[in-house]
């Protein structure tokens, strides 16, 4: 069930990501990967990172596996971090999302630079922007997902009350 949820989230993230303008400073797949890792642990983060990254790579013109490798490592690390520390509060989550985005960018850009395949003229600004955006979206998204079951329950309850009246 959890796996299905993660797959569904990844699919949604990919659909939205591919619908966004190319210059949008956000990586929704990464957000899903980190959120899955925070919620379910390093293994889920790893699987989500691998799948999401590979699909992203496949849909882009880059080297297949670059994004996958970066997201796999980040997902695993985020999950491991979440098992060691309590990251349920907003600020820690923000920090985790931001740190995960930075680490992902470092890995991704580092690999490309290392292999001499691409150059990144001003990585700091773009990474910082993406870190903030991912953190905000991640925290909000996680809150929404967490609140979703309660909302559904309350709506059902309200509907039931109306029917009784």
């Amino acid at each position, binding site marked *: 069930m959890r796996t299905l949820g993660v797959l569904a989230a990844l699919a949604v993230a990919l659909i939205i990501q591919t619908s966004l303008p190319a210059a949008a400073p956000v990586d929704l797949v990464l957000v899903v990967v980190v959120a899955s890792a925070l919620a379910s*642990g*390093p*293994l889920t983060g*790893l699987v989500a990172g*691998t799948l999401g990254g590979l699909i992203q790579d496949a849909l882009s013109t880059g*080297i*297949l*596996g*670059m994004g*996958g*490798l970066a997201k*796999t*490592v980040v997902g*695993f690390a985020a999950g*491991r971090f979440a098992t060691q520390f309590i990251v349920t509060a907003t600020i820690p989550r923000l920090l985790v999302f931001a740190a995960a985005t930075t680490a992902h960018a470092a890995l991704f850009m580092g*690999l490309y630079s290392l*292999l001499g*395949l691409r150059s990144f003229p001003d990585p700091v600004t773009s990474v910082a922007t993406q870190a903030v955006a991912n953190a905000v979206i991640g925290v909000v998204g996680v809150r929404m997902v967490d609140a979703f079951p309660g909302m559904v329950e309350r709506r059902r309850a309200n509907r039931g009350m109306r029917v009784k009246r």
Partner: protein
Amino acid sequence: MALADIRQRPGLILGAAIALHVALISLQVTTQSGVTVFHAVVFGSVAEAQRGASGATGSLRSLWDGYLDLRRVRAENETLRGEIGGLRIQLQQERVTAERAEALRRLLEFRERTPLPTTGAEVIGSGASPEFRTVTIDKGTSHGLAANLAVVAPAGVVGRITLPSARASLVQLLVDRNAAAGALIERSRVQGIVVGVGDGGLRMDFVAATGDVVAGDIVVTSGIDGLYPKGFTIGTVERVERGDGLYHVITVRPAVDVSRLEEVLVVLTPPAAEAQP
């Protein structure tokens, strides 16, 4: 169960995932030489494997060549050993021939030195019984030999002919327990009789206790027995003991090693005939 075990080891899964990605990336990324990293790594690995296999093959071949060389060397060694064996035998034969020639040379010199008429003879056999110390020589009556003729060697007296036949003669050695010869000490001219004791040694009897005899004295034939010519060496005094009676007990070491006797001279003229006018 295995899946649960693997889930307990997320690090392992991470390693596998990273390896998978690296392999995937390697398949696409090209090196400066234009080939993919994957190809370069695979080729490098295969090349290393080939290098290892080639090294192993080379080692095996070297080992095999070494084995073949060893076999060849072994065969060669056996051939050389055979040749060495043959050469040793040849050398031994040459040595025997040389020794024989040397013995004959000595015999010839001895014969030339000896004023008496002599004839050379070859020892063709030894005694048939250990109780009797005899040898057989290859000359007999057809060569002018007769009984009681003295047989000598360059080193000294050998014995006398006891049984001549047409082409061979039996020689009683002086060391036989039934043999005897008139003798004297060369230095002091003390006389006595030398007899064989049967074990290869000699004893000089009838030497007065007052006689001047010491160990190391040369004992020669005195010629009074009518068999052996005077002056031929019999042996060396080995030990002089004080006897019970009037005589010394003198042990004499024979001058002639009868066990190595090969050629001898037979004195053709008996002393008795020589002594006759």
